[in-house]
């Protein structure tokens, strides 16, 4: 009977060889453990920290839906009450990945994240847009359009001005430069 039990055990384990090996949860680095992220909203705006008035939010919602129709870019605007002690870089990347912003086949996703209580802001860019919304351009939008308004306490205006600048750039980039090889391989995996 012992041999039978052993054979059964092997049979139970064997299918594992065709599955992708997972990293045991215990061996992950703390930085990889997901922070508690907000639920993905129905639409393109999640104003958890209530920085945008309702009427402006409705207009923003429409603006972003139109952008999706016109440009096939998913621009999502999020404000959070807390980053939960995380860095904004890590938090926004986790959020963008968890929500899967944009179509996986062209990876044209953008996340504007405002954390008013931590006084931080970030624009997270999917690799499909890496040569349109470059680091330098995203930095300029934050530095020149958003922060000056934030400093005057105009969180809503600053956020909307940042969004406008991004949309303007997207609309002006009809023939974007090619994306990197690693981005192409991500698209291929999704296709």
């Amino acid at each position, binding site marked *: 009977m012992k041999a039978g039990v052993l054979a059964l055990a092997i049979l139970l384990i064997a*299918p594992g060889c*065709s599955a992708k090996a997972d990293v045991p949860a215990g061996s992950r680095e703390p930085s990889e453990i997901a922070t508690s992220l907000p639920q993905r909203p129905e639409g393109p705006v999640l104003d958890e920290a209530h920085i945008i008035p309702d009427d402006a939010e409705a207009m923003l919602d429409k603006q972003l839906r139109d952008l999706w129709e016109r440009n096939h870019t998913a621009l999502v605007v999020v404000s959070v009450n807390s980053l939960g002690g995380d860095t904004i870089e890590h938090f926004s990347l986790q959020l963008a990945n968890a929500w899967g912003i944009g179509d996986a086949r062209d990876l044209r996703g953008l996340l504007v994240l405002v954390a008013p209580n931590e*006084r931080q802001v970030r624009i997270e860019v999917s690799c499909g847009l890496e040569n349109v919304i470059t680091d330098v351009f995203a930095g300029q939008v934050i*530095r020149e359009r958003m922060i000056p308004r934030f400093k005057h306490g105009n969180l809503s205006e600053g956020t909307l001005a940042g969004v406008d600048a991004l949309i303007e750039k997207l609309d002006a980039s009809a023939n974007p430069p090619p994306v990197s090889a690693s981005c192409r391989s991500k698209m291929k995996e999704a296709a």
Partner: protein
Amino acid sequence: MSVIASLRVALVALAALSLTACGINSVPAAQEEAKARWADVQSAYQRRADLIPNLVAAVRGAAASETTILTNVTEARARATSINVTTEDLSNPAEFQRFQDAQNQLTQALGQLRTVVENYPQLQSQARFADLMTALEGSENRINTARDRYNEAVRAYNTEIRTFPSIIGAKIVHGAKPMVPFEAAESAQTAPTVNLDNIGAPAPAATPAANDNAPAEQQQPAAAAN
């Protein structure tokens, strides 16, 4: 009893059958994944290295007296870019350590440069300099992300080659050796973020975007069947 006995035989035969495939495909697949993530690590470091000559030139223009720190950065860059890690070296802890040490020294030298430039408000207010700092932070964010993903792929590969039953294929067919992950990023690695408290001071370098989002499923490997 003979029913149980024949069932037992059938089970053993089935188990043996399914074992034949073990590790033959999954081991090289995991290895290729880790190698691809390594290529991303290298290109992220290269991106940073490419920025440094312009950054050094910009700082020299406004802070010519800071020769020590500028020389440190230039030399650390030269050392870091001189070490070329091939995919074979990824299983060589000593060679990997050399690469990691050289890159960490460059990270530290750049951290010192960041501290020093805070004393030069006229430099901070130059749009060109702000762009360079944004690009530098963007490259360092990419480095961190690429390192994390490489480590994830290496851990998956290392687990694969020493987990039954893939270990059979790994040892016998591929002669697979474990790959070396990066050690945890140092604190110097954490890029500074926008602080809106500095009202009245020149705008701090903004947080750039790490242009490497992947869809959710690429971040979380599928749950394993074992």
